[in-house]
């Protein structure tokens, strides 16, 4: 990263002028508190991650997957973090930073509700008023997360414009920020948005790879040959990769949501996937230049994935840059493969993953599973693979069961008795 928040040509600060002073103030706070640990900010943050968040999370050997894939498969257990996903690393960091900055109000957007719940938890913990913007359609799809946010004392503001999903919620939150910028901090939920967000969120999330690296050395006396993480906006991804970027011997795989197909319907403005690294093009969205799902004119397309946390038309600029430079390999896994992987991990390891995280396991299966064609890709994974379990699947139970039922995933348990009553 250069000082102006550029990763190659990506990144930058494409926001309305009204927000620029806030972003400069934030950047200043980021440099002082996060980078220079002023007032012991980072120590405070790390202590809270430990005591409130439950860090470190284990690096667990997956015995049955290791056997299946004929290599050492280790799981980085972010699903065990308070709230059930890696999202808390970032939310806690940003809310704490806002507190150090003297802000008095927190706003955030949420799609699946994971970032919203993490932010609501962090705000309750740190005694900050909080409002969360969430598309009306998402509110209806993700009720338990709405309940959790409200129980933690946050307001949930339904966004009714447009299609009522994440994209609209982000825009709406930016509008609130532009109106209340003086006392309000906007907690962005991934490594996206204008500088310093992509760097700052990465730094808060990089505790994942920092721990994993140390744990790998302790457990196997060496670094992994590969790290695999799903990529929506890319925050768990950058978190899992950051400390390995300089370890040339460790391959890094970012697994995107292939949705139902990689083909796009330009007429309808719909991409039935969220594979912006694989199929996207360069553009500017939500404050940064990055890879996007957009039509020929530059209008943003509606993305799709069975996992709502990956369902976003953009991706973090740093991750896009690392893919362009070849340091990170972007791959993708479709809805069916992800659902199958969801069931496989649940049955074989006793861990019900978030549908987002299931994509990472789908990749393992597709290159190293018993039905995988012999390929160089499997060699690329090497002997010793770390997979980031970015979150737990409790939030996905109903949709996983419904989607499974519609698709007839063969390893799924019989849930006929429930699919009616959902």
């Amino acid at each position, binding site marked *: 990263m250069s000082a*102006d928040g550029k990763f190659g040509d990506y990144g*930058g*600060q*494409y*926001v*309305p*002028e*009204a927000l*620029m*002073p*806030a972003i*400069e103030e934030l950047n200043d706070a980021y440099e002082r508190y996060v980078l220079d640990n002023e007032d012991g900010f980072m120590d405070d943050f790390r202590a809270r991650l430990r005591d409130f968040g439950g860090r470190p999370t284990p690096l667990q050997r997956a015995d049955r997957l290791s056997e299946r894939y004929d290599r050492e498969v280790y799981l980085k257990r972010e699903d065990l973090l308070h709230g059930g996903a890696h999202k808390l690393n970032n939310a806690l960091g940003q809310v704490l930073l806002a507190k150090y900055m003297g802000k008095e109000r927190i706003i955030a957007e949420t799609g699946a509700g994971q970032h919203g719940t993490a932010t609501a938890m962090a705000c309750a913990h740190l005694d900050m008023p909080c409002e969360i913007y969430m598309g009306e359609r998402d509110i209806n799809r993700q009720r338990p997360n709405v309940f959790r946010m409200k129980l933690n004392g946050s307001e949930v503001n339904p966004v009714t*414009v*447009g299609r009522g999903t994440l*994209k609209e919620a*982000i*825009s709406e939150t*930016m*509008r609130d920020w*532009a*109106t*209340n*910028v*003086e006392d309000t901090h906007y907690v962005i939920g991934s490594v996206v948005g204008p500088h310093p967000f992509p760097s700052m969120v990465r730094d808060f999330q990089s505790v994942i790879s920092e721990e994993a690296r140390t744990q790998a050395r302790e457990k196997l006396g060496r670094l992994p040959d590969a790290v695999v993480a799903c990529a929506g906006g890319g925050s768990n991804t950058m978190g899992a990769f950051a400390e390995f970027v300089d370890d040339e011997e460790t391959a890094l795989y970012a697994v995107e949501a292939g949705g139902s197909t990689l083909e796009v319907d330009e007429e309808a*403005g719909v991409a039935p996937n969220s594979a912006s690294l*694989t*199929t*996207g*093009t*360069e*553009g*500017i*969205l*939500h*404050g940064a230049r990055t890879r*996007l799902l*957009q039509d*020929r*004119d*530059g*209008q*943003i397309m509606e993305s799709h994935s069975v996992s709502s946390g990956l369902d976003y038309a953009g991706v973090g600029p740093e991750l896009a840059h690392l893919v362009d430079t070849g340091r990170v390999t972007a791959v993708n896994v479709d809805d069916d493969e992800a659902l199958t992987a969801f069931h496989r991990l649940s049955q074989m390891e006793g861990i019900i993953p978030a549908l987002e995280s299931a994509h990472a396991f789908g990749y393992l299966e597709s290159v190293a599973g018993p039905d995988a064609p012999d390929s160089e890709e499997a060699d690329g994974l090497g002997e010793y693979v770390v997979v980031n379990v970015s979150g737990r699947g409790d939030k996905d139970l109903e949709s996983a069961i419904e989607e499974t039922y519609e698709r007839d995933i063969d390893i799924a348990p019989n849930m006929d008795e429930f699919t009616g009553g959902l």
Partner: protein
Amino acid sequence: MSLEDAFADGPAFVPYLAAGDPDYESSLKYVEALERGGADVIELGLPFSEPIAEGPTIQNAVVRSLEGGMTPTRFFEFVEDLDVSVPLVCMTYYNLIYRYGDESEAQRASNTSGETVSNGPRPFVEKAAEVGIEGFVVPDLPAEEADPLREACDEFGLDLVFIVAPTTRGERLDRIMEQVSGYVYVQARLGTTGAQSSVSDQTGSSLERLTDYDVPKAVGFGISSGDHAERIVASGADGIIVGSALVDIVAEGHENGDDAETVADRLETLARELKDGAVAGASQRPPHPERT
């Protein structure tokens, strides 16, 4: 006529409408009505799917226009089809400028890597110049990121208008004022676009920061009546920018199924009220040392 010239004869009235809202034909009539109502410059919105700086009124206009099939290509046709003589400013988001004309159909078809690299803003500016657009307002493009667009504008002789927010001060302000041309868009209040029932008190102090800069100052965000317009010009503005109050008329006409002529008349009426307000405001203001 250049943009700056439009501010030469007294206060300028700068209305905004989204091109193609709610449909191509009606929209042509509405924009033309603005000129009849006294517009000195017209800001014409090219709708983007993620209008992060707009309030609900303009967001909904954007949705109507997109659903009506508006695209950058259609937008340029629209400008060509327009029968107005005042200068036009294209208001849009940077991604549409950035992506325009980056690849031909043929290039695209033969491109299997999935990577398409933009040629930057130049093709868009070139085309805009060709159809007669005089300048741009790009709400998500801060001065820091504006060099490529600035260069293209210079090349084709277009102006680049910047927005100055109430929070913009000091060094930032200098940086913006170095880049700006045509006029500066003075945001009257924090937040997003949208008609307001009262006018911001901060206008006077907002303008004070800018006295040292020699470029017309047009104040926008929330102006909805002749009375507002009058007070703002009286506080020292060189022009007023009005969007949501006009878009509200389009929206209402659309909802009620009113015919385009009726709606155009209403727009003309409000435009005239606003223009008259601005003119009335000018007569109240203290003699201006720099701009006589």
